[in-house]
């Protein structure tokens, strides 16, 4: 991004410049804020608050049917009777943990490799980044075909390599369906994290790397003591964005397994949606939504506070 040239006009030394405005400063700001706040309030904040309220009622979602206050019944229900919730919760947590490791490490390795001056470097970077611009539902549709048991890319390749014994029903086997979908997720998201790491690598001081090399440090020592510390802020950002995108996973699972087979690939976002709109259990669906909201906030709120604090300085 370009930064504007600073004006050469000297600031007034006598007093801090005050915005010449009568009345309350907020009145001047309000016209600029109003449209955003109205939309945000009505279509984002209000639905979230409503979800919290609806998680305490019994309701099937039809406007003509009355909502019955149920207290904590919906929560009791999901924590005690709802076995799918336990699978969904476990899968969501597993997905976050796996995402923090697999695509992140892969992205870092790719970024380190593509930071060298190489022939066709930009083309190579694009190859890894392109899946990130596709609609998740398109990725899901592509990979459903790739995993096709008979004519799909994976099983055909295994056959031609003489590894027929490795052939699986990738999306139809409850033991592995979730991991099969996760592979598509890795393919889709690695490029994005790679770009973040590449940007972060630009901030590594080149003279320090040179100095380390002159002092006879090995490549690993240089990476460990110079590159890695400089990448710390980038790491924070990548990890936070990865957590957020992991908890938002929905399209990919809908498109590939719809939570099946036998609910084995359910996650919280999808189970909440299914309870509300497929099973017409708005109370249960919204209670699940609140659980998802609490997990999300618990994971990202500390980071947000930290960012804005840093910004203060």
């Amino acid at each position, binding site marked *: 991004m370009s*930064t504007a040239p600073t004006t050469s006009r000297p600031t007034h030394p006598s007093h801090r410049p005050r915005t010449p405005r009568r009345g309350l400063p907020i009145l001047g700001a309000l016209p600029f804020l109003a449209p955003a706040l109205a939309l945000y309030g009505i279509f984002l904040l209000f639905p979230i608050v409503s979800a919290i309220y609806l998680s305490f009622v019994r309701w099937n979602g039809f406007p003509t049917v009355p909502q019955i206050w149920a207290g904590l019944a919906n929560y009791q229900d999901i924590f005690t009777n709802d076995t799918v919730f336990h699978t969904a919760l476990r899968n969501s947590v597993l997905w976050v943990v796996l995402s923090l490791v697999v695509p992140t490490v892969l992205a870092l390795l790719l970024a380190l490799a593509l930071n060298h001056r190489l022939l066709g470097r930009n083309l190579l970077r694009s190859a890894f980044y392109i899946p990130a611009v596709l609609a998740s539902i398109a990725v899901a549709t592509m990979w459903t075909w790739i995993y096709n048991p008979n004519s799909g890319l994976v099983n055909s390749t295994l056959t031609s390599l003489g590894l027929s014994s490795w052939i699986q029903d990738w999306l139809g086997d409850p033991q592995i369906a979730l991991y099969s979908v996760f592979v598509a997720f890795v393919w889709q998201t690695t490029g994005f994290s790679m770009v973040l790491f590449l940007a972060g690598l630009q901030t590594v001081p080149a003279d320090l790397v040179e100095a380390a090399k002159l002092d006879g440090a090995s490549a690993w020592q240089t990476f460990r003591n110079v590159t890695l510390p400089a990448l710390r802020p980038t790491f924070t950002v990548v990890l936070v964005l990865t957590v957020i995108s992991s908890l938002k996973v929905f399209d990919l699972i809908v498109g590939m397994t719809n939570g099946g087979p036998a609910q084995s690939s359910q996650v919280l976002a999808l189970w909440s949606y299914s309870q509300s709109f497929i099973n017409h259990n708005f109370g249960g669906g919204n209670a699940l939504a609140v659980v998802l909201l609490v997990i999300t906030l618990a994971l990202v709120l500390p980071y947000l506070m930290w960012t804005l604090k840093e910004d203060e300085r």
Partner: protein
Amino acid sequence: MNAVRRANYPLIGLWIALVVCALIWLAPFAFMVLTSLKSTADIGRSSIWALPEVWRWDNYTAAAERGELWTVAGNSAYIALIKVPLGLMISAAAAFAIARLRFKRQRILLIVITLGAMVPVQVAIAPMFTTLSSMGLLNSTNGIILPYLAFGIPSQVFFLYGFFRSLPRELDEAARIDGSGNWRLFVRVILPLAKPALAALFILDFVATWNEYGMALVLLQDQDVRTVPLALQAFQSQFASNYGQLNAFIIMSILPVLIVYLMFQRFFTQGALAGAIKG
């Protein structure tokens, strides 16, 4: 352009490894293109990397007709072309107020707005459905623009706030001394400087809007208002065994986004840093 004159074997090894990885990464695309040009019988018979026995270009026309591609692409384009510029203006105005004007509780406001970027759509979707339904805005391309705008605001405000903050304060002071009010400062000074940021956000938001599925799934259920991702999902569930046409339809649905990406690559790399790297 090779800076190293002498052969650098580790680097050559690395390059070969990267090229192999990139080819693996791109294999799904090649597989999809090949499939899209074969007949179903051909797919069952031949090896996956074999060229089509007969090049079935008609898969594309048939898929476009079956999936009502022109209708759904029209809907998607209509939504994106209204939502994206409108959303940018709304976000830019709010970000300008938070970054350049002084009022109480600015920080809290920014935190509350930014939090919206982190919440999965599914948390709010059930009440949103009831809200839009009571407003009579379900199954309407105009209706879905409202929640689209709301959910686009957080990340854009956060990004533009960072950008506006990086502009020197002297600009405002100079403009104020020249007698500019808030509006003139915003329109004449700040917005022109934000052109690159706004251009990057425009492209990114266009792609994000074109790709959106979770909200559309709930809020657009009628056949005639569906967007491209919904049509793609429907195509998969209805004609899953017609692999040639299915892959042709996937290709046609991602083509606009791929073209936009190839034309505006640098915006994507800049946008990836949206609010991520504090400069």
